């Protein structure tokens, strides 16, 4: 027992020495941020569980997630809907923020036609403190969200869908009671500047579905913030 204690105290001593070694090399002025990150204990190894997620034509799972108004929301609640515009988004990612007005506009344009927007925040607030449920409530209010903004608390829904980033859009169409994935990707071809959009990928896809056509551009790519697991 004594021996163990000795080892522990030795280890503690060594850790102290180790820390002081670190400190020596830290410039005291202003570059603390990056040097802190160099310390091994800050370097977490992310689990690289490769979940592929949905491809076009897959049946998307329904879910039951808490909206910012405390109510639980499922796709099955929407009896009249022809489909859904599911957008994984979050509070502060600059690309998500730049898309907020467009999400509201999409909901306004397509909810009456049977394709409401359903927004889901997939981020773990322990990793991304700006994405707590309370701050989601604030965001929904400030940005004037006219659609549910759901909290993927167990982080299970985004993983099933295969969303890797925010914003990340999944367009679903109801077919025989199933929600089939028809389009995956970006809202349009210019996240940064709505006034310079040339191609409204998502709106085009919804309009094609409404016209009974096949979606012509089924997948697009955009830069986004990685989902914080």
């Amino acid at each position, binding site marked *: 027992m004594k*021996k*163990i204690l000795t080892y522990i105290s030795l280890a503690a001593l*060594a850790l102290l*020495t180790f820390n002081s070694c670190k400190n020596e*090399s830290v*410039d005291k002025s202003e570059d603390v941020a990056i*040097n802190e990150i160099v310390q091994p204990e800050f*370097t977490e190894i992310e689990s690289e569980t490769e979940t592929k997620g949905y491809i076009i034509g897959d049946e998307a799972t329904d879910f039951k997630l808490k909206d910012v108004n405390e109510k639980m929301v499922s796709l099955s609640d929407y009896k009249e809907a022809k489909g859904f515009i599911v957008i994984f988004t979050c509070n502060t990612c600059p690309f998500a923020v730049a898309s907020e007005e467009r999400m509201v506009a999409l909901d306004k344009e397509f909810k009456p036609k049977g394709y409401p927007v359903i927004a889901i925040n997939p981020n773990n607030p322990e990793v*991304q403190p700006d994405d707590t449920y309370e701050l989601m409530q604030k965001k929904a209010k400030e940005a004037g969200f006219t659609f549910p903004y759901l909290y993927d608390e167990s982080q299970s829904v985004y993983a099933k869908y295969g969303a890797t980033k925010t914003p990340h859009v999944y367009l679903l169409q109801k077919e025989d009671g199933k929600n089939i994935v028809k389009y995956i990707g970006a809202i349009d071809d210019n996240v940064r500047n709505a006034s310079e959009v040339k191609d409204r990928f998502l709106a085009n896809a919804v309009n094609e579905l409404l016209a009974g056509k096949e979606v012509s551009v089924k997948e697009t790519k955009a830069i986004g913030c990685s989902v914080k697991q």
Partner: protein
Amino acid sequence: MKLLPILLFLIAFQSCSDKKSKPAVEVAMKKNLHDEEEVFNPNKVISLNFEELEERYLQKKNDSIYVINFWATWCKPCIKELPAFEKIASEYSNEKVKVLLVSLDFPEKLDSQVVLFIKKNKIKSEVVLLDDPDANSWIPKVSEQWSGAIPATIIYKKENRKFYEQSFTFEELETELKTFL
């Protein structure tokens, strides 16, 4: 039971003695910053569209290994892994390893965010800003595997090329780099 403290001790001792036997990375980086003549000038971060980026940096045919990291100042996991890239750049500078950090910050934030960040953190690797809004057209040209999430990294030497949509620790990055050496 006994092993844990011994291990802890060894690890701690190891890292400490490492620092004494050879200069610590941070120290080395700073030294290079001051001594090296051709230091990347943070005031000269250039903006490129994808075509220019591709032409200048993504298809070099020389003997160097290029490590190209896509990041942004607002991207937390990107910032977290930058020290690994800086360390690779400094430790492998003799092995013809070149690190380029491609910022995807919004162009209007170049001075207020990117340049400030580089100066504050004394980033030594070259930084360019990719200013090309139509990401759908160029993301697949970087890699068909890329969903568009950052951080993302390419390592290439001539025709040999690998793409990673993930975060790196120094050890993970070094392991990948070694497959090119």
